[in-house]
């Protein structure tokens, strides 16, 4: 047995890109600028391998002889410690044992193809750092080179004797003493066992086992904790809430059911025969009708806590998880596009200002973007829509929303497992990955979360999931199974537990294929190892199902059987290790009862007189503010065109670099019917009133879709609530108030919610230097995602100005609504009225704009959002490479304004339900007719002069070259 190390360096004359980037990062970190980092990557190979074979593998498989050179030697050999530069210090970074290493798995396959027997392969990274002392290298390793959540750092040469993982597992049935515990002891058990259950819940479990006259086994307690976790049961929002604000008082038995979900029920009733919802709030994703053959499914998930600890892995498995959600909807939907929305703190923050345990926001952002990129791109699913929102309250608790749309044959939209069928798991093997992810995601993050819950962090392997997807869709079309769901939070325990909820199931835990030895039966049951799906397969189809999977290299294993006894029976070989009734597991949780208060704040208008002297620099500052600035650096890293359905891309305009309002995708090759995907979110409004924040987010998501051509009468939306610690009545109150707005606006617009998810307790706490506990709570953050439909995509339009001589209209009314606006942000002003939604206005504006677009009278359409009319006009101009002239005196408002107030309100107010629309002169009459029921006015023209010109009557307020505005917009995030 030998252990070989193969180091791969750039060949002479090739640039060490990774090393250069790390050198820059090191200097950013504040290390001496004489620092130089040289980056090496490599492989460790264990087995009976001859030197000639090791060299052949390096030469023919692992390195590229055109651009790389190698050093090949057995571990410990001095040649491996030969620094390419004088006096450099050596650092290795290697995955902690058990962390997913997809490259090693593929390398192992390649080595086998070359006929070499190898037992174990691992990858590593290696750095030569020169120009600084060991202390600096230590700091570099900790902050930049490695992430302690998943990797270990070795200074100096590697000293390893073997790579193999795991030890043989010796079965021992564990019971947990609960019947005799005091309340205090129950709470200790909940916390120390990482169950994260409340005292009332622990008491309920205690009582149950007192009745059963036995103690629970560890796996029983874990199963209950997983099923009752906030993540799996949404117990707070689906619980009893007594809500009170200054205007109303409401008692909810099930808050979500009586607000968001109730809106959908009401809309469906009103639609009657024309109801186009198919499956809402019950499956992994919501489903609506699409065309004669297909429905579409849509789901958005969050993966916040894992992304805080390990941004790459957290985001990577976040997107992997939501793709499995649509794959596991009905009998399986084919994923057709992704949408990703992130919230970060300012990426320019100084390293020294970071609290302990927090990764730098720039590193978080780069990691998250890379994680989404690598998973989405590898899956072959275009990422077509997204947003990035910056606020310093996301410092210790970034938000990562990942969404996926799937296409599903109409007749495959429902599923049902039956007694007698096999429970089958396919895809990835089970390891210790992500133990306690479901319960962990329901806990608050602290500066020691990393140590406590590092096991909850995982790395995905997209190709395993792609292989699962390929066989799943084939097996679906051959009708080989009756039910499917994904293994997400809670792993097999949630997936099998839910699938068998109405029947009963027995599970053979010893059958699950493992990554390595040593897992206990409980670890197998709750592991959140990625890329696994669970099926219910009738016995007569099992052979064909298994053969199909194996033909594409996918493992399929029977791990249980659905049995008509209403129980969850867990076996490990011949031992029954758990036996619970489904009824207790799924319905035994005591209801959570909470108080929720909200104080509706007073509106304090800002005195605007004397504040209009810097309109040009205000506009440039808003364009440069991080929320508005171009995200092209991110967008281009995502494949947004795979599957060949792209109709309106994320970046549009004469140079393909303007900000599109929504994506349009044509999911069926050869058909002209499309879907739109868009989103709305505005946490700054929530600081004023979460009701109007929620209403505005819905309006924004809808108007973005309408702006490209979606039919407003068939737009469905999803809710994703990310909030702070909802045990506090005022925090929960702000959420309930947002949910009330969701009901009101959805019902009035007949825009149903079809799916949603919440993530609570998004707070980060740490001890400051004085030893005091400091808590940073995220702002209330509601993401609304919209999916719209377009009958014929050739009627779609984009936001870039098209042709000089065309007329510009504003559709919709501007009000004095500057509260939470980007103008107040860059002017650092407090107060103002937050934008509201007038649903009557929406019902006039949206259909009119749609009718005009559909009729072909609109050359460009851009929604007015952050930065108001000024930003919309600037973006429309520079995206089209044309000048735009606006006369503010023509802008329609709710009442008459004058002086500075008029100019600031008309330029920068963020009132909802407004569009800037370009129309050719010959179509103006038709356009004005069709929009007659909405407020509409001619406010300007498109010109050939490359300038944005803002006048008010005869007074010129602003004249700026569009190139200058574009630069202001592009430069901040041009990384």
């Amino acid at each position, binding site marked *: 047995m030998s252990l070989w190390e193969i180091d791969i360096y750039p060949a002479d004359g090739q640039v060490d890109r990774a090393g250069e980037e790390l050198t820059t990062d090191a200097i950013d970190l504040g290390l001496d600028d004489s620092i130089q980092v040289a980056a090496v990557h490599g492989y460790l190979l264990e087995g009976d391998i001859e030197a000639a074979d090791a060299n052949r593998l390096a030469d023919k498989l692992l390195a590229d002889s*055109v651009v790389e050179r190698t050093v090949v030697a057995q571990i410990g050999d001095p040649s491996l410690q030969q620094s390419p530069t004088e006096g450099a210090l050596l650092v290795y970074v290697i995955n902690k044992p058990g962390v997913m290493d997809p490259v090693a798995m*593929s390398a192992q396959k390649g080595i086998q193809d070359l006929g070499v027997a190898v037992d174990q392969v691992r990858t590593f990274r290696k750095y030569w750092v020169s120009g600084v002392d060991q202390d600096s290298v230590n700091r570099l390793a900790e902050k930049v080179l490695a992430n302690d959540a998943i990797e270990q750092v070795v200074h100096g040469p590697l000293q390893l004797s073997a790579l193999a993982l795991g030890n043989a597992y010796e079965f021992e049935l564990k019971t947990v003493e609960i019947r005799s515990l005091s309340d205090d002891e129950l709470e200790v058990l909940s916390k120390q066992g990482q169950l994260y259950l409340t005292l009332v819940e622990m008491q309920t479990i205690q009582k149950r086992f007192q009745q059963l006259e036995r103690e629970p086994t560890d796996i029983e307690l874990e199963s209950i904790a997983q099923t009752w976790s906030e993540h799996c049961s949404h117990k707070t929002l689906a619980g009893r809430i007594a809500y009170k604000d200054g205007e109303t008082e409401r008692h909810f038995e099930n808050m979500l059911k009586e607000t968001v979900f109730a809106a959908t029920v009401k809309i469906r009733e009103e639609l009657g025969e024309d109801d186009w919802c198919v499956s809402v709030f019950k499956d992994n994703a919501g489903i609506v009708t699409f065309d004669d053959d297909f429905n579409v499914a849509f789901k958005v998930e969050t993966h916040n806590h894992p992304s805080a600890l390990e941004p790459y892995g957290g985001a990577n498995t976040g997107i992997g998880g939501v793709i499995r959600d649509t794959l596991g909807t009905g009998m399986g939907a084919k994923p057709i596009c992704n949408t990703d929305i992130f919230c970060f703190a300012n990426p320019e923050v100084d390293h020294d200002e970071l609290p302990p345990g927090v990764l730098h926001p720039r590193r978080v952002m780069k990691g998250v973007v890379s994680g989404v990129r690598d998973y989405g791109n590898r899956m072959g699913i275009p990422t077509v829509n997204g947003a990035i929102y910056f606020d310093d309250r996301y410092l210790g608790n970034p938000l990562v929303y990942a969404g996926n749309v799937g296409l599903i044959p109409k007749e495959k939209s429902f599923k049902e497992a039956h007694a007698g069928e096999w429970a089958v798991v396919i895809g990835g093997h089970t390891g210790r990955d992500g133990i306690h992810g479901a319960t962990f995601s329901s806990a608050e993050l602290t500066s020691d979360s990393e140590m406590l819950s590092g096991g909850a962090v995982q790395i995905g392997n997209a190709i395993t999931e792609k292989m699962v997807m390929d066989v799943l869709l084939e097996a679906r079309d051959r009708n080989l199974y009756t039910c499917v769901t994904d293994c997400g939070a809670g792993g097999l325990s949630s997936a099998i537990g839910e699938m068998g909820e109405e029947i009963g199931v027995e599970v053979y835990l010893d059958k699950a294929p493992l990554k390595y030895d040593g897992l206990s039966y409980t670890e197998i049951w709750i592991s959140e190892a990625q890329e696994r799906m669970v099926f219910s397969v009738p016995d007569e189809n099992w052979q064909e199902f298994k053969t199909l999977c194996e033909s*594409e290299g996918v493992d399929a294993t029977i791990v249980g059987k659905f049995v008509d006894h209403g129980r969850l029976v867990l076996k490990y070989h011949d031992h029954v290790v758990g036996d619970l009734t489904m009824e207790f597991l799924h319905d035994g949780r005591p209801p959570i009862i909470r108080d929720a208060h909200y104080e509706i704040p007073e509106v304090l208008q800002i005195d605007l007189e004397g504040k209009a002297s810097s309109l040009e620099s205000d506009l440039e500052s808003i364009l440069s503010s991080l929320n508005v600035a171009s995200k092209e650096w991110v967008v281009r890293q995502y494949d947004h065109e795979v599957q060949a359905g792209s109709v309106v891309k994320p970046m549009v305009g004469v140079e393909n670099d303007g900000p599109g309002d929504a994506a349009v995708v044509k999911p069926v*090759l050869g058909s002209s019917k499309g879907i739109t995907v868009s989103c709305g979110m505005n946490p700054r409004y929530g600081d004023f009133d979460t009701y109007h924040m929620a209403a505005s987010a819905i309006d924004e998501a809808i108007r973005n879709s309408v702006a490209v051509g979606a039919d407003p009468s068939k737009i469905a939306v999803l809710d994703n609530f990310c909030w702070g610690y909802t045990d506090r009545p005022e925090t929960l109150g702000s959420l309930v108030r947002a949910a009330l707005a969701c009901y009101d606006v959805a019902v009035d617009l007949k825009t149903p919610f079809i799916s949603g998810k919440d993530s609570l307790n998004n707070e980060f706490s740490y001890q400051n230097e004085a030893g005091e506990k400091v808590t940073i709570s995220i702002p209330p953050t509601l993401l609304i995602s919209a999916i719209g439909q377009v009958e014929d995509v050739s009627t779609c339009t984009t936001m870039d100005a098209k042709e000089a001589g065309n007329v510009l209209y504003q559709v919709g009314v501007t009000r004095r609504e500057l509260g939470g606006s980007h103008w107040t942000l860059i002017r650092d002003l407090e107060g103002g009225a937050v934008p509201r939604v007038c649903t009557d206005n929406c019902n006039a504006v949206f259909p009119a704009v749609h009718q005009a677009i559909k009729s072909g009278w609109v050359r460009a359409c851009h929604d007015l959002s952050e930065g108001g009319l000024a930003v919309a006009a600037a973006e429309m101009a520079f995206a089209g490479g044309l000048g735009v002239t606006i006369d503010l005196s023509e802008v329609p408002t709710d009442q008459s304004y004058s002086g500075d107030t008029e100019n600031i309100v008309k330029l920068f107010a963020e009132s909802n339900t407004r569009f800037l629309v370009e129309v050719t002169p010959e179509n103006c009459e038709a356009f004005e007719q069709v929009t007659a029921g909405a407020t509409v006015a001619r406010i300007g023209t498109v010109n050939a002069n490359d300038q944005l010109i803002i006048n008010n009557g005869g007074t010129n307020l602003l004249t700026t070259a569009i190139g200058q505005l574009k630069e202001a917009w592009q430069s901040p995030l041009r990384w």
Partner: protein
Amino acid sequence: MTTPKVLVLRAPGTNCDHETKYAFELAGGQAERIHINRVLENPSVVQQYQIMCIPGGFSYGDDVAAGRIFANQMRSHLADVLHEFKSSDKLILGICNGFQVLIKSGLLLEDDSNGDPPATLCWNNHGLYEDRWVHLQNASDKCVFLRGVDRMYLPIAHAEGRFVMRDDTVADQLQASQQLALKYVNAAGEPASGFPENPNGAQRNVAGVCDDSGRVFGLMPHPERFLEGTQHPRWTREGLQAEGDGLAVFRNAVEYFA
């Protein structure tokens, strides 16, 4: 005209196989998606086809290097049957990841006398994956797939697309034999001058390469992503083209057997 049969060869991680099959069908071919495992079980299956296409994607995750594991399978297990295919007046096309596979398998450019490949596709200069539309110029009279094509506007979407040749001798020789078939140019058709016109830093602005016969062709851009007007990034301002620039590549392949 005879309808050629097209083998769209997929591996774990291939993800442009459906639209590539569709492209060949739109061009008049009869295409099938076949998993590499079926070919490994029975290599002679490829003999039923006139055209073989390795589509885009991330075969085996691009692990180790883009296309390497797939190429290694072809070198280790399918060398004979593929060389026979190549020498019997049939066509082979590699798109994006397929180009990476063809280059690394030695099927497109044969290994030199040391047994080393003369060229490779490696990491983009800026070190990132990039999705972007590029202007392309046909630079070869030899390449079957580019017959009648002068310019094309197509998207690239890759991380490892920088074409690098072992030395100038190799480069001059490939240039002289018109094998550097497709080049990045600017919007005016002049040679690309750096990023983003040449999106990855490829030597001599090379976007696509053919073998000496012109019947084996690999390219980084995705012709299957521009078959119809609405796929163009600026169709809402420039109007709908009757057909996309990429369709010609597939039609040329099908018409070769007319």
